[in-house]
């Protein structure tokens, strides 16, 4: 008994020390964050998201005296390579990136490269109060890479398809139907170019549907017979490309470009990872108001996106304050408004206080936005190793 007590005390004190060393109390963090400037490197390709980030900047300055600067990226990989270059140069503090919008492959690269600060996410007050990590696999497994508190969730996304009801009555709701449609309407179907994120997701989406046993995709690719599992995917693409947009010689670079092509009527079906993208673009006059969103009958792939803090950030406290604010019911509800962004909340509805629940209940839904129910089954992302293997396979077949 005595032994056990000593062991317990020892364990407790080690724990407490570790707590003190690694996780100073939140009030300390708030104090240190005051006056810090946080350079948030976040993809800047969509005006509505940029505006939302600006709103966050105004709010954290008012409330916490943290200066937030949005560094607009065309590709998150740029910021990753910048942090990498800084590590190469031995610059272990005063890095140029303080906060980074990230998930998937970029997160894996940074985590494995030792480029991240943390763990910090699970110590954020709002995470502890409102997030239920077990609610979704993607909150703890970012494309098969364990999150382990090295990034803090920000929002959720699911692949959706868009079409114009004025020209297309029965949208194809499976990969086979999509191929049939493309054969009947040559040049009107395409997908973003891998390794663009949405493009790679399209490959995974198609693979999940076409392969015999999708559960194998949850295992690391090295343990599987890649050629055998992916054979139906390549056969599908080999058939699709000759009847695809611009005969499969070139592909759109992003979801934004797909929506523009949809508006131009160059293509008939666009993809997005943003469930309210269509409503937002209609409101801005970039899509006709006859455009609607749909998902495939078998469900579509969904994932969570996060923010992370580089190891050499000069404003780690400020960055945590921002990450925590992003998890507040206020920020999450505002973000989910379709005219603002329409990005899905990562908070557990049942953990919210009634007034915050009401806030979410009152969010107006855009005419082209699907409800959570309509979004149907969310297919899990395959293990992260599949992404690179699929991209490599795609490069070898179609990119040369």
């Amino acid at each position, binding site marked *: 008994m005595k032994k056990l007590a000593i062991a317990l005390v020892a364990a407790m004190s080690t724990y407490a020390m570790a707590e003190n060393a690694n996780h100073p109390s939140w009030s300390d963090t708030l104090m240190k964050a005051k006056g810090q400037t946080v350079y948030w490197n976040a993809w800047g390709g969509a005006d509505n998201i940029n505006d939302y980030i600006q709103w966050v900047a105004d709010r954290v300055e008012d409330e916490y005296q943290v200066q937030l600067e949005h560094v607009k990226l065309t590709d998150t990989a740029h910021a990753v390579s*910048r942090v*990498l270059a800084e590590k*190469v*140069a031995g610059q272990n503090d005063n890095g*140029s990136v303080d906060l980074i919008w990230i998930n998937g492959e*970029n997160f894996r690269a940074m985590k494995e490269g030792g480029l991240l600060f943390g763990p910090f996410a699970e110590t954020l007050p709002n995470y502890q109060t409102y997030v239920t990590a077990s609610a979704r696999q993607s909150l703890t497994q970012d494309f098969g890479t364990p999150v382990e508190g090295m990034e803090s969730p920000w929002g959720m996304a699911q692949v959706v398809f868009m079409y114009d009801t004025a020209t297309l009555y029965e949208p194809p709701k499976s990969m086979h139907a999509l191929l049939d449609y493309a054969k009947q309407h040559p040049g009107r179907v395409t997908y973003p170019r891998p390794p663009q994120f949405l493009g790679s997701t399209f490959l995974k989406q198609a693979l999940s549907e076409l392969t015999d046993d999708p559960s194998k995709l949850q295992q690391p690719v090295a343990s599987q017979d890649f050629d055998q599992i992916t054979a139906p995917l390549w056969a599908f693409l080999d058939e699709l490309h000759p009847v695809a947009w611009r005969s499969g010689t070139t592909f759109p670079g*992003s979801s934004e470009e797909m929506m523009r092509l949809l508006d131009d009527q160059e293509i008939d079906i666009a993809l997005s990872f943003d469930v309210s993208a269509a409503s937002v673009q209609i409101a801005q006059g970039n899509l006709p108001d006859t455009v609607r969103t749909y998902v495939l009958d078998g469900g579509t792939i969904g994932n969570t996106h996060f923010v992370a803090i580089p190891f050499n950030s000069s404003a780690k406290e400020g960055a945590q304050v921002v990450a925590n604010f992003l998890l507040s019911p206020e920020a999450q509800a505002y973000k989910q408004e379709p005219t603002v962004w329409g990005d899905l909340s990562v908070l557990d509805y049942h953990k919210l206080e009634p007034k915050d629940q009401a806030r979410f209940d009152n969010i107006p839904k855009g005419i082209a936005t699907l409800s959570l129910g309509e979004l149907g089954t969310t297919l899990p992302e395959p293990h992260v190793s599949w992404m690179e293997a699929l991209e490599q396979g795609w490069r070898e077949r179609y990119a*040369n």
Partner: protein
Amino acid sequence: MAGFIGVLLLAFTPFAVGMISILLPALGWQPLTNTWVDTQHVWLELWQQPELVNALLRTLVSGVVATLLALVCAYALVAKLSQTQFGHWLGAVAAPLLSIPHSAAAIGLAFLLAPSGWLFRLVSPWLTDWQRPPNLITIQDPYTLSLILALVLKEMPYLVFVMMAIARQDKIRQLLTTSQQLGYPPLITWGKLLPTLFYRELRLPIFIVLSFNLTVVDVAQILGPDTPPTFAVLLLHWFQDPAIDRIPIASAGALLLLALVAAVSIGWELCARSLLSYLKNLTLTGSRQQPLLEWGLRFAYLLSLLLLALAFLALLVLPIWGFAQRWRFPDLWPQSWSFDTFWRIQQPLLELTANTFMLGVTSVMLALLASLLLLEVSRILTRYTSLIMILFYLPLVLPQIGFLFGIHISLIVIELHHPFWTTAYLHWLYVLPYVLLTLKGPYLAFNQNYLDEAIRLRPHPLRNYLGIKLAMLKPALFTATAIGFAVSVAQYLPTLIGGEGRLSTLTTEAVAQAVAGDRKRVGLVAMTQALLPLLAFLLAALLPRIWTPLRLRLKYPHA
């Protein structure tokens, strides 16, 4: 002298450091882990990249064909027009045309040539029966045709500008008159006799054009193919790949690109020599008729006029998009116009313009200072003149992509964290050669007797230098400023890397949004990007002319 050496060091250190920083990884150094792998392994892996061969092929085709076409079209234009009034006018507008950032023109071109673009709207649906854009591959085509078109449009005005200057030399005019008196029609003289004379002075500009075309990133991102892209774009992808193991092969690739540029330049020179010696033999036949040559030149002339018209349309379409509200295919004009986009983006637009302007002014002022120093030294020590000039061509001939990444690493090593100054410095590297080349002629041709006389009359060397020599060189200084400013505005890769992503200019914004972004927004940004240098040229042409009369009017109002 200390200043002279300082400027040389400032100008060349980055290139040396940058080159070393890509050389080491290409030899197998893994920067992150600071370990070495087998050099052979790196190069083998580069060789095994699936895109490699095709990307190189596309680079080679687009680079060489674009250079050739730009050269032939520019030459034909100069041949037809240099001795005419219209030609003089064209020579005068070539410089401002030159100043339009190529990315803006490329964006405009994409707006024209896409299947939903303006050219297709012009003929739809009344002629083509297309109610919606046809499924044609008119931009980003695998044959790099649209890329070639954009590159020709970018380089042709530059070559016209250079060639017009050559064509106005007395010896060329006399030669044309003489051979006309001997019974040769002018076009035959241009086709047979003059290429040799021109080529001697064109060699360096051609190599600059060739190197640019083989290594261009921004235009290739907008109009080039994507499966695979050209090699330079592929390299950028590799350098920016979060998978860190790409750095060695990306560095090796950068060296490969460098070797490609060198090899193509040598091959070009060999071909040019044999062609010129063939033409020389042709000259000796005494034949006054060469229908093939003549019609070739005429065809190239028509092509060049067509290209100029296309460039004009490409720039015209930018503001139309910028102020359109809703504009769907196949409408020739927007259904409705509005300032909505302008009001919506005025804040970022103002910020981008301010950044672009400050970078331009800073780098140009520093480049002017450095140029004056270098030119004064080379005026006194004439034996250094050609050395300085050759050294300063280096940044124009060297591909940007490789060593800029190296520069990035080295800047962090010395803990330089000033996005603005770093970018201004990188801009300066590219602005300097242009300012130097623009000033060189007028500066070295300045009649030093004026300054000698001034010094005899008033013993204040520095005041006289500023008040007499520089004041008399005003037109050249203003032109150099405008050209330098235009060069700075157009910089894409140096801004991307020097600014650490914290500094956006009109150019980085326009290129980033060009393909994917909202066309209304891109139209406005690209239009502003194109207007800024044009404004600078307008001022450069106007100010020196009205400066002295205006000054006297203000100082002696009664006179």
